[in-house]
């Protein structure tokens, strides 16, 4: 047992000389590829003429010196760097394969959970599509133009579909409210803003009459529709006058 231990010790003392310069050179080469605190596995065998090497630096032969040490270390470092740079494009990436018949991982549900937790507020949204709603649509002038055009469209459709009797009524109806408004308004203001509340109710009335007219061509039906129109007319005129009064009072103030 003693002999065994002695033999091992004998070899160990003789062979173990250090070369930190080489270790540093290789560490420097791997530095950009491997995270801090991690090390690669490296096995290096260096052969050199014995007359270039001096092992008698240290009494216990723990150190080793050889000729042109720095240049040789630099060569080794460059060699490792080149090899690593060449091997970089061929880096392997492992993808987890699904077993046949296995359900797909539900990635969407995870996203929805996340969105529930931190919702995106309107003020953080940005209009990315040019066709999407613009802020100009909420300005006054552009609102009124489509409203008037819709009214005119409704009248044309009714004239196409409906009977001549209804057409007359519609014409009468179109002329009537403006007259009423002219009468009701004390000052000469036939601005579009005053006309604004009328179209919605008037179009409703048109829709009603149109269907009635198409279904039955009897006098009763026509008179009934006339009654409806008249009642709706009165309502609209009243509303218009109210609106006008309100405007007037506001102006006085």
């Amino acid at each position, binding site marked *: 047992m003693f002999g065994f*231990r*002695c033999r*091992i*010790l004998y*070899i*160990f003392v003789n*062979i*173990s*000389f*250090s*070369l*930190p*310069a*080489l*270790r*540093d050179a*290789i560490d420097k080469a791997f530095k950009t*590829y*491997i*995270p801090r*605190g*991690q*090390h*690669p*596995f*490296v*096995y*290096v*065998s*260096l*052969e*050199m*003429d*014995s007359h*270039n*090497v001096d092992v008698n630096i*240290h009494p216990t032969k*723990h*150190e*080793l010196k050889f000729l*042109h040490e720095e*240049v*040789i270390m630099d*060569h*080794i470092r460059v*060699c*490792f760097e080149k*090899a*690593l740079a060449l*091997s*970089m494009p061929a*880096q*392997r990436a492992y993808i987890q394969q699904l077993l046949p018949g296995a359900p797909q991982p539900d990635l969407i549900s995870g996203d929805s959970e996340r969105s529930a937790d931190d919702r995106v507020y309107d003020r953080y949204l940005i209009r990315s599509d040019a066709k999407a709603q613009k802020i100009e649509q909420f300005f006054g002038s552009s609102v009124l133009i489509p409203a008037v055009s819709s009214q005119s469209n409704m009248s044309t459709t009714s004239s196409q579909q409906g009977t001549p009797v209804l057409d007359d009524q519609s014409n009468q109806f179109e002329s009537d409210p403006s007259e009423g408004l002219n009468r009701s308004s004390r000052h000469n203001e036939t601005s579009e803003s005053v006309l604004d509340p009328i179209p919605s109710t008037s179009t409703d009335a048109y829709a009603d009459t149109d269907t009635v007219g198409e279904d039955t061509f009897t006098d009763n039906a026509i008179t009934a529709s006339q009654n409806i129109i008249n009642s709706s007319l009165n309502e609209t005129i009243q509303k218009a006058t109210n609106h006008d009064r309100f405007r007037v009072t506001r102006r006085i103030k």
Partner: protein
Amino acid sequence: MFYNMPQRKNIYKSATDEFNRIYDVVSKYAIHYPSIAFTLNKLGEKMVLRTPANTTTSKNIAIVYGADVAKYLKPIELNDTVLQFRMNGYYTDAPYSSPRREFLFFFNHRLVDSTSKLCFRCSVSGAEFYTYL
């Protein structure tokens, strides 16, 4: 040897520590000499290390350090006629890294221990001290 310097004997604390040192040296030499078969037995236990004769260095590395290291292993060679030295070895690619430093260095077919604390103490006394700061 132990009589003159009792510190030398104090280094060897336990049998397992001693065995680990032996295993370290034998396994490294087994890697360096793939043509020679190495076997390491521990008293009262089954065989710890066995490398077959006439294999390759990479196969021996796989036996000693596991298949994980061998998967990323790549050979490297350098011959310099001007400076008159020859280097050959193996290194692992960028995907592999371990917190343990595994650095085998053979100089003229002799194992150079570059990780022991002893070598650190020597280098502190020498000029290499500044590389550690």
